[in-house]
């Protein structure tokens, strides 16, 4: 049997600059179309569903504030993942680092490490943020160290550590810090809350009821810092070099082991900070379900943004919107469906960046 137009892939030398952007946007659009087909198959009108989606997440400032709340941890985790992925370190452990960050941040209140009555709010919150980052980075140190010294696959380690972190948190919220037997700690005092927009409703009435908290500022500042690291700093150059060719980096005198550990710790610190913003800015207590698998969505966010820190901001808002919208429709799994399909498409679209698809036609050859 003969195929009329044999198709083959040819390694492309020069993917145009706009190509990554187009594939990312294309992946999202295609994911919506495919999910639309699924929705239609279940008897719903996809267009109606999507317009509902849009209204639910961008329909009002209040809704948008909710989107920001969901986008905050995604942004921080997405940035951490981007940094690690830039060095080709597959940190799938953001979920675990998130939980350990949340745990250590909660410890400030639960132990308590400072006098919650007298210490000013900014100091408590700063300490919580700091401990959140330390928690995440310590938890990132484990896979980093194992990878650097023993060359153990970081994907397996980080994945497994996620479960340990969740169980570790459970130990505390079921046991020692349990609030009257419920699986959660007591509510934190106001002095341990990240400032929210609603806090300023007296001055600006429009803010009333808005839950967006200062965590988003952490995220935006982190985006700028990560951008400077990757594109401006010497360290970013080293990361990029190791990512592209570790042997060349070693040959050039770069200490790969140290940078592996460092990147894991920084990546973990950002995830840990995300954990702190959730407990201090949203739920105000440590509890079982503080994460709607932010750690894994963050991986998708980083990929979809092609590891560009500013693109991570946009993508995390999009994904935040999906999460908010999923509350409005049933089954709520539809937004995860879209997320999953998007990741699937974005990874497959890499083939378009690396190869040109050609069919064999006479007199139509390109340089190899």
């Amino acid at each position, binding site marked *: 049997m003969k195929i009329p137009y044999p198709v083959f892939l040819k390694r492309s030398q020069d993917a145009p600059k706009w190509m990554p952007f187009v594939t990312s946007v294309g992946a999202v659009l295609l994911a919506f179309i495919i999910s639309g087909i699924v929705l239609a198959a279940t008897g719903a009108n996809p267009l109606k569903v999507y317009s509902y989606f849009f209204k639910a997440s961008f329909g009002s400032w209040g809704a948008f504030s909710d989107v920001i709340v969901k986008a905050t941890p995604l942004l921080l985790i997405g940035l951490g993942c981007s940094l690690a992925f830039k060095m080709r370190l597959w940190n799938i452990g953001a979920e675990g680092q998130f939980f350990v960050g949340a745990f250590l941040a909660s410890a400030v209140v639960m132990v308590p490490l400072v006098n919650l009555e007298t210490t000013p709010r900014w100091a408590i919150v700063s300490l919580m943020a700091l401990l959140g980052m330390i928690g995440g980075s310590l938890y990132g140190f484990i896979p980093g160290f194992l990878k650097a010294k023993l060359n153990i696959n970081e994907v397996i380690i980080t994945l497994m550590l996620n479960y340990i972190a969740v169980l570790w948190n459970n130990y505390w919220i079921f046991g020692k810090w349990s609030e009257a037997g419920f699986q959660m700690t007591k509510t934190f005092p106001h002095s341990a809350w990240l400032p929210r927009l609603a806090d300023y409703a007296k001055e600006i009435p429009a803010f009333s009821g808005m839950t967006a908290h200062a965590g988003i500022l952490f995220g935006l500042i982190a985006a700028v810092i990560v951008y400077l690291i990757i594109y401006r700093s010497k360290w970013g150059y080293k990361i990029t070099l190791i990512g592209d060719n570790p*042997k060349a980096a070693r040959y050039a005198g770069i200490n790969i082991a140290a940078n592996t550990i460092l990147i894991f710790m920084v990546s973990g610190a950002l995830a840990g900070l995300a954990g702190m913003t959730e407990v201090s800015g949203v739920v105000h207590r440590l509890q079982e379900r503080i994460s709607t698998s932010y750690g894994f969505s963050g991986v998708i966010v980083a990929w979809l943004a092609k590891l560009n820190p500013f693109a991570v901001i946009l993508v995390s808002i999009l994904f935040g919107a999906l999460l908010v919208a999923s509350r409005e429709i049933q089954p709520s799994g539809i937004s995860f469906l879209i997320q999953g399909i998007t990741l699937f498409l974005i990874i497959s679209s890499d083939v378009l960046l690396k190869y040109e698809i050609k069919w064999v036609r006479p007199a139509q050859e390109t340089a190899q």
Partner: protein
Amino acid sequence: MRAISPIKDELMTFTEEPNAIPAVEMRDITLRFPGVLANDHVNFTLYPGEIHALLGENGAGKSTLMNVLTGLYKPQSGEIRIHGKKVSFNSPRDAIANGIGMVHQHFMLVENQTVTENILIGLDTPHFALNLKKFDHEISDLADQFGIHIDPTAKIWQLSVGEQQRVEILKILYRGANILIMDEPTAVLAPQEADELIETLKGMAAQGKSIAFISHKLNEVKQVADKLTVLRRGRVTAERMDLENFTRESLASLMVGREVIFNLQKCEQTAGREVLRLEDVSAVNNKNLPALRNVDLALHEGEILGIAGVAGNGQSELVEVITGLRECTGNVWLEGKNIANKPPAFSISHGLAHIPEDRIGVGSAPNLSLTSNIIMKRYDQKPVSQKWQLDYVAADSLADGLKTEYDIQAPNVQTQARKLSGGNLQKLILARELSSAPRLVVAMQPTRGLDVGAIESVQQLLLNQRAQGCAILLVSEDLDELLSLSDRIAVMYEGHVVGTICSGDFDINQIGLMMTGTIPQDLKSPSSVEDSSGSNENSSISAPSSRFDEVLDHVKSFEESSSPSEEADQSVTPPEEPSEEDLPPSEILPEEDPELNLSEKERVLRKVLGEKYQQGDVE
């Protein structure tokens, strides 16, 4: 039409018969890539039973032409006839169906599968159940038919590069190919392996296979081919020529289009003070086996120390130990600092430049820009480094300057390194390494795989460094290169430095013998086999050493006393040497009739020295 294909007993008669139908006839092949005329009315004819070399620089259009023949590209004009029948290939599948197979430079083998399994991959038979034993037999019969030595049950990872190449050849033979295209097959091989390959190819040609042999190595072409076609910038500059009419120089000028200087400008100078000293250095290889054994070496300012040896005798480990990429015991002194077991950054900061063997895998970051590759070792120095920042503007201008100075052909400094040709990539690496005013340059195979023009400029750059007082350690499997560049040559065998020779005493035969490890094992004369540093510490290049005459005498007396007949002399070579039965004593017995021994001698030297051997080099 396959019936026309030659059968065994018709053999060589095809070669010179004018009436025979060519196995391949390509006429007026024109193929234009955007901006490049890759093939401009190229003719190529290949007769059954013939080895036809296709010679040309990188980018001359050799590979393109062969890709047309294997159906990968379709030419804009021209026609292809296979055994007289006009064909038009739409895909490589069509070419295979017509009995055309290509062995690429980079092998496509599955490491964890056996030879047989690799050969069967992609075939329609067996359909489902696999009786490996039966196919093992089939393949071993096929291998025997062509004199290829291979164990069909061996796993690919257990095989040497040369053996892996044999698997690739068997793969296409098994698919019924009678037209074989070899794309620079010797580029990846050690000299001995290359010779074995050439023997195999000649055997296959004698059985009627037609072989197109792509190469840019002049010596090798003279050794292997019956006919020659030379390409230059997509055009044929010599078509189906007999090789006798060419000298190395005339071949080179056909390839490059100008006279190539084979004698480089090398000034006379005496070596200065010591830059590098290795004391009792030992190291293990990746398999944890001893690779370096008690090596002592010294290297001085303005001196090129060549390291000769058959591949895999500790040269790579030596380089890695010096550059800090491998752990060792013993001391490595660079300008008075012990750099043994120090991280690479330490020796880099003390003036060590390293031109690695693997340009793409180690020497560059393929997906990063020219600039990023240039600053690889100086991103931490002014003006590129600005506190925590990296000044990309300064980096670009630095890269731009070096791009001009070292004549790196690339659109701009933002070009990714992987888009550079081999020669330009090597120039990029040289630009990075040499522009930092190094004290010591460690260069491993700096010209391997480059075309003639690039080889010349790389070698000249090394000589310029020497003139500036830099110490250079040059590891090469190209003996011609070592002989023309080095002030001293140290020969390595099984991790030992067998001995060191000064430039006045260079003798390719002696070096060849030392590369087989003969001297230290069979001559119990401490003075003759003494290692470099001790005796060479103060010897300047100009001071001639008489040690080699001594060695020669010892060899002679040894030969005479122990073995009057040639047969008995087989014991002279160590058992590890695969070519042991071929090593006669003739080259060290000048009394014998040179005419009588020439062919034998030639055979041996070719075995030992591979393509580097030239008739002119025998005394």
